[in-house]
């Protein structure tokens, strides 16, 4: 059992520094939860991320609940959820109260342009890091490349891609007996 206060602070930090949607959160969670605190092994983190994509709702919220539950049961899930939601809730309420004056602030816009460029690098880094764990053989490489192409060129839905991945995994494992020797 991990102390709830630590879980809260970690997810508060993650919520505060996630710009540009759920995927931008992947490298942050990885750094804080996997590398620094060693709460989860990399493989379990990738599994959790895949599950968070397969259920409806924001990926950040789903990941927080899944990881929080894994760390400290129901209390952990609620604590992580509260931590990840609170910074954005407070900031947006502040902006709404200031009645849109925020949008015209050029310095804020400039900072966000810089952050957006860095976030692109952050997400590429997340793909590399997760790829080291998630891709175990040539079949994995082909599946990853196919998913990337189907997403960017054909704009297939994320849920459909995850279902297709599961089908491919079942066919490969039970039809061709590959990839099941090693444990994640």
């Amino acid at each position, binding site marked *: 059992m991990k102390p709830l206060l630590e879980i809260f602070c970690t997810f508060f930090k993650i919520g505060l520094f996630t710009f540009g949607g759920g995927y931008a959160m992947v490298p942050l969670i990885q750094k804080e939860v996997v590398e620094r605190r060693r709460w989860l092994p990399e493989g379990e983190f990738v599994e959790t991320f895949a599950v968070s994509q397969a259920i409806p709702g924001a990926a950040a919220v789903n990941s927080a609940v899944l990881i929080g539950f894994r760390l400290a049961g129901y209390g952990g899930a609620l604590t992580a959820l509260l931590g990840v939601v609170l910074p954005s809730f407070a900031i947006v309420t502040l902006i*709404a109260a200031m009645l849109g004056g925020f949008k015209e602030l*050029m310095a804020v816009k400039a900072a966000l342009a810089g952050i957006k460029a860095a976030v692109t690098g952050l997400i590429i880094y*997340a*793909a590399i890091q997760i790829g080291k764990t998630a891709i175990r053989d040539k079949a994995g490489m082909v599946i990853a490349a196919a998913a990337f192409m189907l997403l960017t060129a054909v704009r297939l839905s994320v849920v459909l891609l995850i279902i*297709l991945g599961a089908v491919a995994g079942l066919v490969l494992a039970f039809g061709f007996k590959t990839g099941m020797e090693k444990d994640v």
Partner: protein
Amino acid sequence: MIYFQLLSAFFKIGLFSFGGGYAMIPLMQEEVLRHSWLTVQEFADVIAVAGTAPGPIAVNSAAFIGYRMSGIGGGITATVGVILPSLILALIVSRFFLKFRRHPIAKAAFYGIMPVTVGLIAGAAVFIGENSILRNRITVYTVLDALRSPLEFVHAANVIIMTAALVALVKFKANPIFVITVSGIVGIGLYYAGIVI
């Protein structure tokens, strides 16, 4: 009454949006217009603000719209509504997931799903980069222009920031929070130095 409407509308939005925050925008627009909470223009402004503030876009837009409708109480109600489906479903999945993740069928499925997540994340980098690194989206119509004059097609400053971020992360194992903070400062610096982003 407004609280109940906010709760049920945002619960529905949270329940039916698969594939992350941006996927829920069309459904949210439908609900917001149906209740006449905002005009189309106001809704577009909300999405712009929700996309720039940190955190999940779903939570941001719920908090914003709820606040506009009836203050802090409305903001809390709409936010709770949008995260409640995730909370319930993720808890149910968690219980089964921990029990069955070592089952051969689950392991086989994840053997195929895990590489898909790599493709999804690489795809997310492309979608975000399209609006930051490139000046124009690469399509069948613009690909020739892009090849002819690649330097005019990309934002040089943003390419440098992205590359620097990547090098800092890969080579120097920099903390992502540090990278985000520095890139924000660089963005402001470039603006005041007169380099238009």
